[in-house]
């Protein structure tokens, strides 16, 4: 039962990450492609029945046209039926930034577009942006998570193994790191960054700051674990046989912390995904035109969006399945670790 839960959550996460990695294929359009005639278009859902009541076997979407005197109110245009096709050629993109391709999972033939989640203020396809945005948000979570846990394991192991002054010093620094209000630090850091660095670089830098500021909690956990482990017989025996300190740490202590580190990672990643969403929401994350779930959601702060464009809130739901999956994974890993111990 537990094994199956672990398997399914892991399978979901691998699949979802793969989808984000292959965003170019799953997204029908490029994330920055603007359709200046159709800002704030509502989601166009595929139909099987047309305006005259006729059933079609191939799903289709209707084109839209502006309502009289409005730039953002549309009505479906029954005369413009656009059938949905699968595996179509469209805009060029590169898979993982390496392999050029123009194959998309789906698309429509005709002059209009299929916007499963509507369009934003620039007429950009929200669905494509959510898929591409996953790259940024998930990468942010993963990267910051690995950084934090990596730093945490190193500091925790050294601190727990040596004890005494080293331990005292490391743990006080850890307390300071926990107490620093990271949001203010980021606000300050962002305004000092030079403007000419690309938004991607600025973003990675911000993420590194979050990751490096969050090493303290995993470090404290690892320290406790190492402290108890260094008294165990096989560690003492290794030292008795003349093993060096670094050998003992590398060979015996660090491997023991792996399961805890992995669990910590599964807990921290969703936190950092959320941190990225928050930062981008506040305009500190990745810049236009790159999408992330946070900067897409930032648009929904505006009254008119809240009042009349509900689909602009959908990016807020995107992280939910990931949170559930990561927490389930952390849960399963924790239970598994307990059994093994």
């Amino acid at each position, binding site marked *: 039962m537990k094994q199956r839960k672990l398997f399914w959550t892991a399978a979901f996460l691998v699949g979802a990450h793969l989808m984000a990695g292959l965003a170019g294929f799953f997204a029908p359009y490029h994330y920055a492609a603007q359709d200046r005639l159709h800002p704030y278009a509502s989601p166009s859902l595929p139909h099987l029945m047309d305006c005259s009541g006729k059933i079609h076997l191939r799903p289709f979407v209707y084109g839209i046209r502006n309502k009289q005197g409005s730039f953002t109110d549309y009505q479906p245009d029954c005369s413009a039926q656009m059938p949905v096709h699968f595996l179509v050629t469209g805009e060029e993109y590169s898979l993982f930034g390496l392999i050029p391709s123009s194959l998309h999972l789906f698309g429509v033939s005709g002059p209009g577009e299929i916007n499963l989640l509507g369009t934003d203020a620039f007429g950009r396809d929200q669905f494509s942006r959510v898929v591409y945005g996953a790259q940024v948000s998930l990468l942010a979570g993963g990267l910051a998570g690995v950084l934090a846990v990596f730093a945490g394991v190193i500091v925790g192991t050294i601190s727990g193994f040596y004890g005494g002054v080293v331990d005292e010093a490391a743990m006080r620094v850890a307390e300071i790191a926990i107490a620093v209000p990271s949001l203010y630090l980021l606000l300050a850091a962002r305004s000092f960054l030079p*403007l*000419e660095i690309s938004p991607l670089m600025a973003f990675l830098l911000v993420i590194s700051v979050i990751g490096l500021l969050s090493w303290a909690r995993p470090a404290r956990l690892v320290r406790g674990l190492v402290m108890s482990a260094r008294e165990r017989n096989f560690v003492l025996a290794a030292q008795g046989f003349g093993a060096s300190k670094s050998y003992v740490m590398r060979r015996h202590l660090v491997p023991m912390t792996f399961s805890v580190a992995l669990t910590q990672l599964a807990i921290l990643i969703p936190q950092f995904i959320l941190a990225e969403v928050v930062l981008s929401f506040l305009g500190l994350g990745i810049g236009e035109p790159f999408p992330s779930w946070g900067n897409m959601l930032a648009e929904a702060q505006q009254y008119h969006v809240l009042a009349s464009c509900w689909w602009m809130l959908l990016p807020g739901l995107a992280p939910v399945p990931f949170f559930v999956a990561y927490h389930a994974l952390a849960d399963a890993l924790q239970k598994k670790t307990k059994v093994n111990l």
Partner: protein
Amino acid sequence: MRSIRPITPSFLLACLLLPASLARPEGRQQDLLKVSVPVGHPGGVLVVSQSSEPKTLNPVVAVDQPSRDVIRRMTADLVHINRATQKTEPALARSWKSNREGSQFTVELRRGLRFSDGAPFTADDVVFSFQVYLDEKVHSPQRDLLLAGGKPMRVEKLGPYTVKFSFVAPYAPAERVFDSLAILPRHLLEQGYKAGKINQVWNLTTSAEKIAGLGPFRLKQVLPGEKLVLERNPYYWKTDSQGQILPYLNELIFLTVPSRDAQVVRFRAGETQIITQVSAENYSALLADQQTGRYKLYDAGPGLEYNFLVFNLNDDVKGRLPAIAQKQTWFRDQRFREAVSLAIDRAAIVRMVYQGRGVALATPVSPGDKLWFDSDIPIPEYSPEKARKLLQAAGFSWNSSGALTDSSGQPVDFSILVNSGNVQRSQMATLIQEDLKKIGINVHVAGLEFRSATDRVLNSHDYEVALMGLGRGDADPTPDMSVLSSDGDIHLWNMGEKTPATPWEAEIDRLMRKQQVTPNYAERKKLFDRVQAILAEQQPMIFLASPNILTAARDGLENVRPAIMDNYILWNADELFWHTPAGKH
């Protein structure tokens, strides 16, 4: 919500009679100003939201908009600019005469007027007020406008109700600079001024009886962080055509509601009754429920705000910021600037950012400025093809991946600095980014919060191109000198320039100086038209668009006549009244 007592007829009668009887002490002749507006009835409360709490109630030092909005309801000026006609009209000055050159003005004041605390108003108050504004030690933001040819004006009292203002040189906009210069009560402020503490008086903790002005309202109460209550000034000096003393409203309440979106929500919930400025998107959202929501939306047309891209042409970045200095070789080429301008789709900006409620610009002057707009200057067309040709002629070329490169083969890219808190400007930057990609220029949009962004533009000059907006203070060219003249305080593209860097900047300087001393409007207009033509040709700033002034007011509020000069809707607060019986609101 506070409940409001229904007003009894006797109270109503008192409201009508009390001020009139109080304002006519000892049977002295009073010079009241009769205004011809639809006659209303007195009473009622008007609640309006403000983006932040006023920082001060002191007219001498106030610079922020919320403070000015409140102060201007509590004070009056000698000569006032009618927001609807954009022309000057008499206010506390009953009449004025100028000499032929336009350097001296003799002002006849209204007689028998009283401050809101009952103290009489005389020429001494006027002389005192200008003494304070002109005092260098006070650092009043109004002082600059009172200088002509670099020298302050002289103010002399000729009689109890006559004052003479003399400038060292003819000063064309002289009448207009009196607008919004609040006349201060000497009896309340002279002591503080003499003690050198004029900057500290009249803050939010000052008690209401120590503050008095000649405006339609006076201070009643301040609840810090929450609201500021003004009440009707019973000594006000304007009447309607039936002789009723204005203002009609009993109270004017300013609520602090920080975000524009929250202001809309509060308005929809009925907690406020007007919105001073609605964004175009919110306007569209509100438009749908206009009937059921029982409010009216007003579009006053293009305002005096102009949004633009400014290239960093500051000389002081040489050596200090080599990366920017290198890019300046492109920015200094007029053809490069013009190509960027041609590649920007201004119509798309108006349509997508302002939902069609705005206008594209060729110069800083929008068609909303009735007196100074030059319709002969065409809006730059949107033509990436022409932009490419121009770039080619200027020695630029495109590499195999389509990116624009300069003559030394370096790819052309730059960052656009924008205040990330301003949604409209951020949207413009994203549109421009996409537009410039079409001519092979790679643009980074760098959003920073307001303070960091303005600090880079005004002080450190550490930016490449910035997208900003400025509001023209008045429908007159003289305040524009701070931006356009090479020695101006906010001469954005090259701050702190000692001598004009180019012949065309020298010509702008000359024309702007000349218009300032030319009394004849038609001649001044010709001079300023030429300035606009130079700006449109040289494009040190690429003028983009100007939003319409959009406002909203609840049904039943009458005499609402939104204008494009500040305060868009409260400028005639003394004339506003509730159509429904008083007290309902």
